[in-house]
């Protein structure tokens, strides 16, 4: 039975003239697990919001949406609220109450259930999700993953028939994200609830999905099962950017030729598929850029840091050397203190033991002005905090004035940055109203106005789509070519493998295993990229998708 039927829906926002959704039609069967993907700004969120009547934004809609064969508008509000559940993107933005148990009860209270009924349902939900340990906790004590799990649970407690999720893992670290997806899968298997999910990271979710839809510029351009969606997209455009979003195994499969069979989607299937290739050539000849061992531009010597006398040490005797013109990636789990390490390098925090050297001079001896004008710039985890003015242009102008440019010079510099980042069309928008990828770009733009020699980035790939990620990668490489030194803190291993000259693993207050990405990942068995996991039996040094594809082509199929 079809649970949702969308027919020819167009949607235009109240304040805009452009159509956000254009002739969208699809059906979703009861009990299916549908995944929607597409670039930011393609209308995914808008589409989801149309399916949840309470969240439908202001605007003009035509076309029809049927829920269980009835028009969505005709269904009684109370039924709709509990039967269609919606989980939003940011964990914090949807929690209303201040304790876990009360958040769970919130929806049921709205439905007017009695105390005894609510108590029973909460008990059931808490046991199912194993939340017993943190049932009494305050929201502020929870981790991001726990918060998102709570959001899921407080929707599920209302027993929805359909669960709609809008990029629920975009703000989580990879481990928490994988766990969340597995929970979702278990739920789907256990209860048969229909799931409609929008997601950027398809690696974990493809194997669970039954239906994939690609949305572009407000229209659904491809729809199919996970194993054939790649073919459909390839038929539209051989080099469609969204092909990059597919799981690694699928990308390798399509990278090797135009196969028409069903594609592998998990790592294990990918390994099986690669097994058909010979492994005589283990490594491709590459012009490896010789690392010049210069005096490091930025160095840390036995640094110790904690936030207060009674707090634990977060950085424990770290020594680091960063060469001029390299991209240095610091990887590590959540809460390991990577951000703190970056703050030490940026001079925002001061070590209580040891010192940081910038251009061979102790960081302490620099004044604020010397440090942040034409020297070091830090992109914080939340780039919104960089902007104080009401348009991006205004903000850039204020920054240019602060740095001491006169009017002519300022407009010249802004022009240069604008051209380099292709952000001309965004300049008159409010900095808080642009999408995640765009925000990342305008934030880097602002930092570039300060003409830094060293650029520090804190989790730059958090919550952005493949397209924005590719652009970021190109931008950083371009900056490196201009001689800039870039330090990135991230838990995105694939990104680090693609871009880094040098990787370090941050664990328990120390930076371990500093190495070039190839050996860094090749030596790890578990903490490594998906491509490396797939290929490691045959080509242990292949760490990116491209490496694997090139090696397979070079070796050729095994005829046996």
């Amino acid at each position, binding site marked *: 039975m079809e649970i949702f039927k969308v027919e020819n829906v167009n949607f235009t926002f109240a304040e805009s003239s452009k159509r956000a959704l254009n002739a969208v039609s699809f059906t979703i069967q009861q009990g299916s697990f549908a995944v929607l993907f597409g670039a930011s700004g393609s209308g995914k969120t808008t589409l989801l919001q149309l399916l949840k009547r309470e969240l439908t934004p202001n605007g003009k809609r035509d076309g029809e949406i049927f829920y269980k064969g009835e028009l969505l508008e005709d269904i009684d509000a109370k039924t709709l609220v509990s039967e269609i559940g919606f989980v*939003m993107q940011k964990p914090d933005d949807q929690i209303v109450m201040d304790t876990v148990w009360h958040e769970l009860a919130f929806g049921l209270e709205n*439905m*007017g259930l009695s105390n005894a009924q609510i*108590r029973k349902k909460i008990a059931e939900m808490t046991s199912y999700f194993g939340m017993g340990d943190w049932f009494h906790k305050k929201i502020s004590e929870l981790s991001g993953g726990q918060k998102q799990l709570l959001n899921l649970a407080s929707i599920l407690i209302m027993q929805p028939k359909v669960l709609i999720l809008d990029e629920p893992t975009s703000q989580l670290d990879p481990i928490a994200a994988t766990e969340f997806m597995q929970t979702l899968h278990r739920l789907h298997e256990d209860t048969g609830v229909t799931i409609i999910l929008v997601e950027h990271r398809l690696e974990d979710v493809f194997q669970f999905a039954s239906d994939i839809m690609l949305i572009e510029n407000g229209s659904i351009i491809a729809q199919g099962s996970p194993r054939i969606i790649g073919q459909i997209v390839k038929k539209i455009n051989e080099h469609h950017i969204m092909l990059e979003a597919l799981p690694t195994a699928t990308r390798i499969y399509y990278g090797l030729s135009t196969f028409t069979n069903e594609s592998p989607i998990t790592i294990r299937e990918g390994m099986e598929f690669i097994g058909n290739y010979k492994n005589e050539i283990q490594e491709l000849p590459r012009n490896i850029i010789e690392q010049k061992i210069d005096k490091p531009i930025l160095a840390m010597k036995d640094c110790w840091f904690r936030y207060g006398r009674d707090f634990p040490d977060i950085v424990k005797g770290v020594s680091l050397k960063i060469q001029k013109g390299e991209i240095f990636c610091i990887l590590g789990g959540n809460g390991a203190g990577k951000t703190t390490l970056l703050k030490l390098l940026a001079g925002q925090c001061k070590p209580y033991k040891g010192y940081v050297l910038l251009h061979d001079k102790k960081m302490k001896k620099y004044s604020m002005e010397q440090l942040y004008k034409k020297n070091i710039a*830090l992109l914080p985890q939340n780039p919104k905090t960089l902007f104080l003015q009401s348009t991006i242009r205004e903000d850039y102008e204020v920054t240019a004035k*602060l740095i001491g440019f006169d009017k002519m010079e300022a407009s010249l510099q802004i022009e240069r940055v604008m051209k380099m980042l292709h952000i001309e069309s965004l300049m008159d928008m409010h900095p808080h109203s642009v999408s995640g990828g765009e925000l990342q770009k305008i934030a880097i733009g602002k930092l570039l106005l300060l003409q830094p020699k060293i650029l520090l980035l804190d989790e730059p790939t958090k919550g952005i789509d493949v397209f924005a990620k590719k652009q970021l990668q190109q931008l950083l490489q371009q900056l490196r070519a201009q001689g800039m030194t870039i330090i990135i803190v991230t838990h995105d291993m694939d990104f680090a493998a693609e871009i880094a000259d040098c990787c370090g693993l941050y664990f328990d207050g120390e930076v371990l295993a500093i190495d070039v990405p190839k050996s860094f990942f090749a030596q790890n068995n578990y903490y490594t990229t998906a491509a490396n996991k797939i290929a490691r039996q045959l080509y242990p040094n292949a760490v990116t998708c491209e490496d694997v594809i090139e090696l397979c082509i070079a070796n050729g199929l095994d005829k046996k």
Partner: protein
Amino acid sequence: MYLKGFAMFHPMVLFFYFLLVFVILLSTLNPVLLGVFFVSGVMLFSLLHTFRKTLSELFFYLFVWLLVTLAIPLFHHNGMTILFFLNDNPMTLESMFLGMAIGFLIISFAFWCKNYSLYITSDKILYLLGTIQPQLAIWYTLLLRFIPQCKRNFRDIQSTQKTVGFYATSSLFERLFGFVKIIKVAFLLSVEQTFSQIDSMKARGYGLQKRTHFSIYKFYIWDCVCLVWLIVIGILFLLNFKELDFYYEPSLKALTLTKEMSLLYGILLSIGLLPAMIEIKELVKWKFLKSKM
């Protein structure tokens, strides 16, 4: 939130308890009652904190007490018994006693406030508010989450802005202006979050019909007993208010300790000591249980 000892009583009972204590404490300056609530307040505080902490608090409040005791006679000159003149103002014995009494009142009140905040936590306030006015309780919760969020945003923005040269100016006016700007942006960012929370409330059926109010608190038999006891004492206190009330001027009221009055003081002492007794009982009980195991 771990409930034990006196905190195991229903929030309503706890609330009435502290209400009664504050009413009794603040409505008379009766030296016996002041003594009773001073001793019981400090005792309860010491049971909930380390010895060191209690001592340092007591030390601090000793100064407060001295200050008040000395300050009141300086500005207040009523009373029959003039001891001496200071700058042509009479210093009276009565106003000195009044000073001491007010000093004790302030210290006792401070200790009871500290005890209050340990037992009546924000979620209990929320519960109490919710039983009276559920709508108000939700907005109060949103506010409770809004303020720390605002603070966090402010901190983040400030530390980021430092790195882009925002404070690199010596003009005080510009610094002040920048400070205000940061507050504004921090506030707006938090408002964005609140809007999204309101969406989430709507999505879960807020406002569709009359809400019920869920709580994890249960009303047990001992809550009932305690509540009745509190009401009885409240009535006793009101009936005997005239005898309990005390004045220092023009001359001290005579303290008559009749049999009935001693009994009444005893009963009021039992109110002051109730939480401390329960906490001690709890301590002893667990010690005993442990030794049996």
